[in-house]
């Protein structure tokens, strides 16, 4: 009862690769990951793809489907037209290892750089008391399944290898926010830290991360904006530079540290108190009828920035596409640098 459908899958490794064409059977009720498994079982046993739970719970199967960052196991085939070609490519922001598998160690490095929970001194295990309303705010962020789709989508690092060192990314902003809002966390400098060490200032609240989050975590509205809000009036922030667009003048006033250029907005008090309109204010965007939000920052045909193949319309025209992924970042994820190689261990590759 299955129908044959056309699939295009990027195959290759860090040295480069190609889109390959496949015709595969598709049955009612299947998801994209089912099709990849069918490909592995019938045509390409060595097609590399990560997955674990097939239930949207582990965040392993992140990929770009028709240019949109998505979970393969949560993308129903019925969301495509009957005759639509489905193009599957690896996450673009991270170096390709093989086929659909990318090196996501960037994220694990950033996790290590995010200060951990600081338990309240003097409170014994078993004596923690917190109200449900108070834990709920942080619980929203702990829903994160670490699929890294938000990290992949964020334009600050998506085509900007050079920003990676300074920028932790939305996943770790919500981690910082989670701890900031944790009723018993003992650190008080989470906001300042996010600003000064995690590169939160580079975020200009485009909300692309929120849009792709499969857990529907309101990354920007509930984490980033509250984290920025109070920091903004205390320290220099590139965002303040944009302040003439986003903030009323009275919010900028009286801050000695503020190095933002003066702005005319609000000078006449005409705009005072009125929500600013040419850019997103700190309040949430409109939620569309389908429960999602519009992405307003850059209006591209595909989510979160251009495709790995340059400016392309999907489905791609047939023919060869030479995708050159960024070179892997050695030194960031240094296997065995801690002198673990035995005396006879020259690990010289292949």
């Amino acid at each position, binding site marked *: 009862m299955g129908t044959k459908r056309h699939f295009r899958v990027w195959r290759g490794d860090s040295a480069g690769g190609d889109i390959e064409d496949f015709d595969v059977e598709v*049955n*009612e*009720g*299947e*998801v994209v990951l*089912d099709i990849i498994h069918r490909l*592995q*079982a*019938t045509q390409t*046993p*060595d*097609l*590399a793809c*990560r*997955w*674990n*739970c*097939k*239930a*949207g*719970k*582990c965040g*392993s199967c992140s990929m770009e489907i028709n240019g949109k960052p998505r979970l393969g*196991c949560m993308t*129903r085939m019925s969301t495509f037209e009957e005759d639509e070609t489905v193009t599957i490519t690896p996450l673009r922001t991270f170096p390709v*290892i*093989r086929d659909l*598998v990318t*090196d996501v160690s960037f994220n*694990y490095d950033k996790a*290590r750089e995010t*200060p*951990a*929970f600081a*338990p309240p001194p003097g409170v014994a*295990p*078993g004596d*923690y*008391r*917190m*109200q*449900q309303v108070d*834990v709920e705010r*942080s*619980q929203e962020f*702990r829903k*994160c*399944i*670490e699929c890294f789709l938000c990290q992949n989508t964020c334009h600050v690092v998506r085509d900007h290898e050079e920003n990676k060192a300074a920028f932790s990314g939305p996943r770790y902003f919500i981690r910082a926010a989670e*701890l900031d809002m*944790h009723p018993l966390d003992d650190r008080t400098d989470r906001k300042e830290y996010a600003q000064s060490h995690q590169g939160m200032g580079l975020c200009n609240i485009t909300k692309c991360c929120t849009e792709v989050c499969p857990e*529907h975590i309101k990354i920007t509205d509930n984490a980033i904006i509250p984290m920025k809000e109070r920091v903004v009036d205390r320290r220099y922030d590139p965002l303040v530079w944009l302040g003439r667009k986003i903030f009323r003048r009275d919010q900028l006033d009286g801050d000695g540290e503020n190095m933002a250029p003066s702005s005319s907005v609000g000078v006449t008090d005409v705009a005072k108190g009125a929500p600013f309109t040419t850019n997103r204010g700190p309040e949430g965007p409109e939620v569309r009828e389908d429960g999602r939000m519009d992405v307003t920052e850059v209006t591209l045909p595909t989510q979160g920035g251009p495709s790995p193949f340059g400016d392309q319309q999907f489905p791609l025209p047939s023919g060869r596409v030479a995708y050159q992924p960024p070179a892997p970042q050695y030194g960031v994820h240094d*296997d065995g640098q*801690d002198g673990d190689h*035995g005396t*006879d*261990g*020259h*690990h010289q590759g*292949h």
Partner: protein
Amino acid sequence: MTTARIERHHYDVVVIGAGGAGLRAAIEARLAGKRTAIISKSLFGKAHTVMAEGGAAAAMGNVNSRDNWMVHFRDTMRGGKFLNNFRMAELHAKEAPERIWELETYGALFDRTKDGKISQRNFGGHEYPRLAHVGDRTGLELIRTLQQKIVSLQQEDFAETGNYDARIRVFSETTITELLLDGNRVAGAFGYYRESGEFILLEAPAVILATGGVGRSYKVTSNSWEYTGDGHALALRAGATLINMEFLQFHPTGMVWPPSVKGILVTESVRGDGGVLRNSEGKRFMFDYVPDVFRKQYADTEEEADRWYNDPDNNRRPPELLPRDEVARAINSEVKAGRGTKAGGVLLDVSTRMPAETITKRLPSMYHQFKELADVDITKEPMEVGPTCHYVMGGVEVEPDSTAAMGTVEGLFAAGEVSGGMHGSNRLGGNSLSDLLVFGKRAGEHAAAYTDSLTKRPKVTTSDVESAVLTALAPLERPGGENPYTLQQDLQAVMGDLVGIIRREGELTDALKRLQQLKLRVAQVGAIGGRRYNPGWHLALDLRNMLIVSECTAKAALEREESRGGHTREDFPQMNPQWRLINLVCSLDGSGDVHLERKPVPRMRDELIQLFERSELSKYLTEGEITQFDAIEGPTGDAAIPGAKSKTEAK
């Protein structure tokens, strides 16, 4: 074949598995000052534990103060039909609350009660609300918390040494294929990086197995590709023994339709919160399947069952909350009797029993998952569910206090789903997550202590490494060999059809024959493509583990001529007290074949057996044992539990 280019590392403790058990063990070993490695087949934080939904059982008594470890112990033994290793059940019940509270100091955020304590929910087989939970994503909370604790330990090490990996290092996407021995002692572990296909050798005097279960050998399963029984097979090959391998838990309510969600579990809390099961005729059939042992605790009318949700002290619980093997068997019988749906399941309905907001609030990820995956709105329509292979009770036979593997090997420890004994013939929902924490900690602690007791580090021999390399590369040398995916499907068919939820002698003998044939074919399995992230090659290597573990299951299932917990023999439908005295233990003989042995079940200590009423025990124990019980002095049953409600209070 040269071993000179293989990457080598030296550790004190190597933990294989980064699920709840592995991470908790690693934390303990690191806190004991040992250099610790964590190995995982998938990325850090993605292990199977993330999928656990319902909660972690611990008798904290936050919701009902009558709860304590003795009641929890009793429930666990009942659930396992008295075949549990009583000492493990005892340690588990006693230590689970501490382990949960400890998680809060690592940053976990459980749902709360009104007075700000950890909230606890009802679950099948637990007498009181006992499961600490976070919505329906408790496993995620658990693994993330442990993962973040490990990161925080790494941060401490970084502050001290300038190197995050100084004392605890995670090797993600790395598969261990062989344990290496020095005589009878563990000397290290050999495996490959999935990414590069390069080999890695970890030399360590102590290895902790925390590799989870075996469900991938079955057609309909909730388990991921990781669950190929690697730890079970590694232990066998190293000379350890497996226990209770015939007991597999089939989750009663896995989705059977539509295909995109097939095998995905509908958490049992759906039933705890009011979901009911109906057959295709619309009948609430569970009332017909209450076994005699449970009659006293379960309602026999729909009215009483419905009253229980609001007034649990004065009503008996609905039969939908029977232990899951009873529910699975009931569904199976309904489907076999022709009262199932087209896809071979029954209907689980919450939509007509709760307002939509309550459902989305209580079961957010369930709601989300079905809406998104299958376009099924659980607030509007019932779900189609049926039995799904879920959990293996059997596993590495361990010494209860230290978790050290039994058999001939030394320096091997096991915790979590890969270990056996704790859950007897059936695991209660929620007892696994707490099991991971309790025995994970113990494994880390005792592995560390074991390394201290050694005077000399065991040494890995080069020839062992060479043969491990050859075995690992063999499928790649046979590009024309049989397709591993076909072999896996054939294995799944044998296990699903012949060693599934309901078993018969004829089918089991047939299964064993077919497994022998598969063995010959697996020896000829091939893989094409290179060594870099090649799933075909990885599966080819996993197959031999799946096969050997399946053989243990089939052999033990054939041997045990009774029905108990996760083992149902159609030809021996009754539970037999004589069989309760017997554990089936598997080992490998010299030629690599599975050898099965009967061993006695250890006898419960007097003060523990006194927690039960004579009338209950008489259903499980032999007459001889009952006579022994009668000779013990002192109160029994609830009277032996301080603070427990007396029977007259409960109706």
